[in-house]
């Protein structure tokens, strides 16, 4: 693997050139507008063939019509390839932060497999839910699923970073017969490691990585705390133990206040004074929380775009690009599903992120 050895101008010159070129292939406002206005799924697929997704959409064998599930899978393949390309271009010493960022998809796959085992799902039905990690994963997903039991599946993970976390949490799974403790343990371990990786960076790289990774972590931590209280009705001590004390804008006292029963809208407004209508959103948590999350994601997207302005030789550039590809893929999934279900545009527009930023 071609890895440049260090950071700074010399280390990031190639990274910057490479990522800039890839950044230019993200969907433009004009392309988003066209996709959004596509009359149906077939036209949407044809339009995607005129974008950076063309090599992934055009590979369908002759005579085989693309299905929505397949198109979504292919858009994710492009994201996975983007990660691989970026990995090859970043300075070696900062490689592990991006690898850890990528592990999120592996953890999602792991959760999907565990859920598949619990529900007795077939491999075919699980396969398309998995993020296409290709050979960049140590997860023997199919073997785990076909093993048929969660403890046996965890045994297959012995040589992975997840084994210790899962084998410790397994006792709770056995006692409670719920995947919840396993999933929470995986998430907590993931975000702690990611935060640790950011703190290992040089001062300059850290200054550029913190706003992006911090925004990601804050969003997750805050949304967890709110959901644990509003949906799961967990106790104060449980919410605290299932969340993280670290963050960029979200502080430990904010999480503790939410856990202790304080007014959530007031706390969210204190942390993000720029967000509009927080009170109104949180009055209806069912619809309000996804809307709040979308607003936080929009902030994250803006943060990522800002990374491309100014001094360019730092980790923030590849990091921002990768987060933007993920948000783009997320929006494409919404559009593909909506168009294939022939949903009217006004019903899904509010769920779009990049599309809405691109043409408000």
């Amino acid at each position, binding site marked *: 693997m071609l890895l440049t050895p260090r950071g700074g101008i010399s280390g990031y010159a190639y990274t910057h050139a490479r990522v800039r070129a890839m950044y230019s292939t993200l969907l433009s406002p004009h392309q988003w507008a066209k996709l959004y206005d596509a009359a149906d799924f077939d036209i949407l697929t044809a339009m995607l063939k005129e974008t950076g997704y063309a090599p992934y959409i055009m590979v369908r064998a002759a005579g085989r019509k693309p299905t929505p599930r397949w198109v979504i899978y292919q858009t994710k393949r492009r994201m996975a390839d983007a990660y691989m390309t970026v990995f090859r271009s970043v300075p070696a010493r900062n490689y592990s932060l991006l690898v850890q960022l990528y592990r999120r998809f592996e953890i999602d796959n792991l959760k999907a497999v565990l859920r598949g085992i619990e529900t007795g799902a077939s491999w075919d039905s699980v396969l398309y839910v998995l993020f296409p990690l290709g050979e960049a994963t140590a997860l023997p997903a199919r073997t785990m699923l076909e093993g048929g039991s969660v403890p046996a599946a965890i045994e297959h993970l012995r040589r992975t970073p997840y084994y210790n976390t899962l084998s410790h949490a397994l006792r709770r799974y056995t006692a409670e017969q719920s995947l919840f403790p396993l999933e929470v343990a995986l998430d907590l371990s993931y975000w702690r490691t990611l935060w640790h990786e950011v703190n290992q960076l040089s001062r300059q790289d850290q200054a550029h990585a913190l706003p992006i990774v911090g925004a990601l972590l804050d969003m997750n931590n805050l949304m967890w705390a709110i959901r644990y209280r509003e949906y799961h009705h967990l106790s104060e*001590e449980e919410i605290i133990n299932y969340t993280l004390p670290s963050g960029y804008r979200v502080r430990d006292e904010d999480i503790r206040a939410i856990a202790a029963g304080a007014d959530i809208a007031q706390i969210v407004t204190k942390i993000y004074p720029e967000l509009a209508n927080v009170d109104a959103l949180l009055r209806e948590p069912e619809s309000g929380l996804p809307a709040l999350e979308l607003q936080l994601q929009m902030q994250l997207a803006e943060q990522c775009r800002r990374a491309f302005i100014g001094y360019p030789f730092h980790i923030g550039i590849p990091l921002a690009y990768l987060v933007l590809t993920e948000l783009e893929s997320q929006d494409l999934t919404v559009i593909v599903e909506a168009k294939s279900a022939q949903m009217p545009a006004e019903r899904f527009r509010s769920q779009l992120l990049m599309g809405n930023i691109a043409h408000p």
Partner: protein
Amino acid sequence: MFYPQAMTEVEMVVPAKDLLTITDALAGQGVFHQADGRYLGSKAEAGSWQETAMTYSTLERQILVAMQALGVVPDPPPQTEHASLIDIEMVRLLLNQIEEDVQTANEKLVGRKKRLEQLRSYLRQLEPIADLDLDIRALTKPEHIFSRLGVIPIANLERLQTSLARIPFVLLTLRQDTQKPVVWLAGAKQDADILDRAARSAYLDPLKIPPIHHGTPADVIASIHIAIERQQQRLVEQEAVISSLRELHAQQLQLLLWRVRVSRMLAGAISRFDKLRYTYLIVGWVPSDKLARFTQLIRKTSKETLIDTTPIKRETAKQDVPIALQGSGMLGAFQGLVTNYAQPRYEEIDPTLLMALTFPILFGAMFGDVGHGLVLALLGWLLASRKVQALHNLASLGSVISICGISATVFGFLYGSIFGNEHILPALWFNPMENIMQILIAAVGAGVVLLSLGLLLNMFNAWLARDWGRLVFDKNGLAGLVLYWSLLGLAVGLFTDMLTVPPVVLIIPTAIASLSVMLSEMLKHLIEGHRPLVEDGIGTYAIQAFFELFETLIGFLSNSLSYVRVGAFAVAHGGLSAVIFILAEMASPSRGIGYWTVLALGNLFIVGFEGLVVGIQTMRLEYYEFFCKFFTGGGKPYQPLTLHPSAKGPNEA
């Protein structure tokens, strides 16, 4: 040598009764690149073969799992030209018998290991309280307080304390550990609910000793030690059982694995055949030089099979013709550098030979030094010979490095340089450090030759593809070549007195070629009969045309000047070597051990660092100045059906 291997499209109509033998013969020969032929026939038939392939795939995984459980490593597949589909039910039967033995034995082994692990974990948690003179139940099941002894992930420890901030509690770390310390959490009985929820959500795993171990912590520890000894003995016995099962089944599993793997591959291939009423249609490609033997063998296998072959002409080739490159030996080493840029298309020139000629020359010219060149050649030989285990991954680069080293040695003689010393050998050509202008002009001259060659090759490719517009009007076609050479002539006339013709003779072709480049798109449309001639309005087109010409001129200038680096690096090599000598003199003016140490390290640095930089620069010149003029790429690699799935195809060799 100048093109990918000639391919012949093969269509076969195979009677259903000969389907399996023909498929076996196709895979056995290892030359047939299959195309997806499913556009006429029955989808249901293809689906059933797909299902068969999936069944084999499941069996293959089951075999691998059994092999893993027995510690059997898969052998390379046997070298044979024949195989047939193995009976699925027979495999299931055999596998069920083996799995039954293996699974029971393995479950016992895993169970015993876990039990041992568990006992050791009890010990770890009890040892810190070994001196306590009270019954263990006073800690694990107290009556008047809340008490929990156990292990906790270290990352959760601080959070646990935070979560209990509103009630009184005691949290003692009894045994430090980098991952899971042993802790004791205690508090008032009335806070038991809160303490329990906090401990559970912090993943504090409580110590739960089986009732068989009782008494004080010291008693329990002694009892656990005895249990551990007993468990170890059982573990050894179980490992012996696994070992005997390995002896019994290893060979059978190896054979089954290969047969099932080949069957999976064959079934997958059949699922891509097109089923007609009583026959199958098989479509694909075979290298033309192997066609005779291929058809002979197919006819021998099934006399009723109809074979229709169509040699693929370069000029009419469709994009899906697979590409088998012809490089072998030394040439094969450079093939990797070409495919790293792009896989050539069927109808265009394979630039491997050009790469093999120009790459070492450019490298040698930049790195000309007899000593350094020989070191590189030796290093390349070492890599290619695979004598050093740790460098196996770089073996494919060995030949390239070796040839570049030899070229650097030749240029070293031309420059009169050995290990940076330019006073020992006489220069057969000239010394770059003393003739800087001469080397720079020679470098640009070489660049002009290479760029012109690139333009000519593009014209040749366009002629092959019958793309007349590209041939005549393209910036990399005839118009570009005329423009480039006219401008060169004008530049020569401007700066020297070597131009023997009046400038107007060059100005006229310059003007015509410029106009052609500017209007190339419109002229191409005109030739191809494409209408409208101009898209997006005449104003936009005029601006685009102007910038097209501007970009072409800038491109020619920058591409030519890029080759200055060849001379610059030759000079830099001399300069860098001189610095090493100065540093060595500074380290030891009397030329003692320090002098020779600095010299040796300095030369190593030059070979490693400068060698790498020059390699990258050479690659850059090849890819971005030379290849982009004529090489489009985008071909599909040739991957024939084979009975040895691990064996590499010709393109990967």
